[in-house]
């Protein structure tokens, strides 16, 4: 399942997509949890009883601001969450 967390507003689309099929048996030992400086990721049991990562609810509405520190304009050449997720389950839409 592709789970898209985030929003669209007048300034653009801000979604983090998580491919939960790659997330269930995480080969990166849930590295996303510690890689995100804002600790936005959390492991939950989804509706189909699988242990997967999601974005914490309050962050879903403030992604543009929460992720700003990790974007290229702040000096990062690659996003920490995407780099840490070696199975390639995480994507940003912006």
């Amino acid at each position, binding site marked *: *399942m*592709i*789970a898209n*967390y985030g929003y669209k507003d*007048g300034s653009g689309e801000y*979604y983090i997509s998580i491919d939960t099929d790659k997330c269930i048996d995480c080969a990166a030992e849930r590295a996303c949890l510690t890689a995100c400086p804002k600790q936005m990721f959390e492991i939950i049991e989804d509706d189909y009883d699988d242990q997967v990562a999601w974005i914490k609810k309050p962050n879903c509405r403030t992604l543009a601001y929460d992720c700003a520190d990790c974007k290229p304009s702040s000096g990062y050449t690659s996003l920490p969450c995407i780099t840490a997720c070696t199975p390639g389950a995480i994507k940003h839409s912006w």
Partner: protein
Amino acid sequence: MNTETTAPTAPEKKEFWRWQENVWFDETKDWKTAKIVTCGIDVGSVSSQAVLVVDGELYGFNSMRTGNNSPDSATNALAGIMDKCGMKQEDIHFVVGTGYGRVNVPFADKAITEIACHARGANYMGGNGVRTILDMGGQDCKAIHCDEKGKVTNFLMNDKCAAGTGRGMEVISDLMQIPIAELGPRSFDIDSDVEAVSSVCVVFAKSEALGLLKAGYTKNKVIAAYCQAMAERVVSLLERIGVEEGFFITGGIAKNPGVVKRIEKLLGIKAMETKVDSQIAGALGAALFGYTLASKKAAAAAAA
């Protein structure tokens, strides 16, 4: 001199936004002979539904406005349908809560997100050909892809703003002083197509609508402009995950042809039709999940 004077009373305020609440149950079925009775409770931000499923088939539902607290709304929604068909809470084998108030359903055995429940409910209502679901809820909007079993494969939700939601339509209904059920048909009663209102925000759309009225637009034209804006808004959400054949709309806005027809025109596909109230999809899906879980429980108990 004894003269009685009475202060003038304000005229009763009409609530144009108030949509029709519904209670229904299938009189051809007898729940007393059923093996498993399950219930789904969807406590949404605007409406609450209780759906009863008997042996995996829809039996009855109650759809009403959400009150000021989730537990009471859940209790009242269930009481409404139980009273109608002479059922008691102990007759129900499994209850699943869903919607934004799902964790506050006091008698629920399990809580499941509305995303999974809407997919399951749409699969029941529209058949296993349903692949893309648009849920236009009271205060959020969801685009969902599912497989032939109603299992979610891709979803996107926007609950940051009320644009493209039922609440937005209620605001316009009150502003125009036209009952909400009439908005859709009236949006077609115009002499030429109109541009969508430019704002995606309900607050600004309201002020823009007022501006259009002052500029000489008829009410019907303003409603048409708002329906078009709402359609464009949700279509942009849908396009993010892609639209596949087997398109189904759930939620209260599915009853508004002014929005539905415009969405169909923008997407170039027709939404699937159903005889079941589109607003109960989430609660129906919850009750069907309940049926699966109760069946598993019963099978495990029989094997032990």
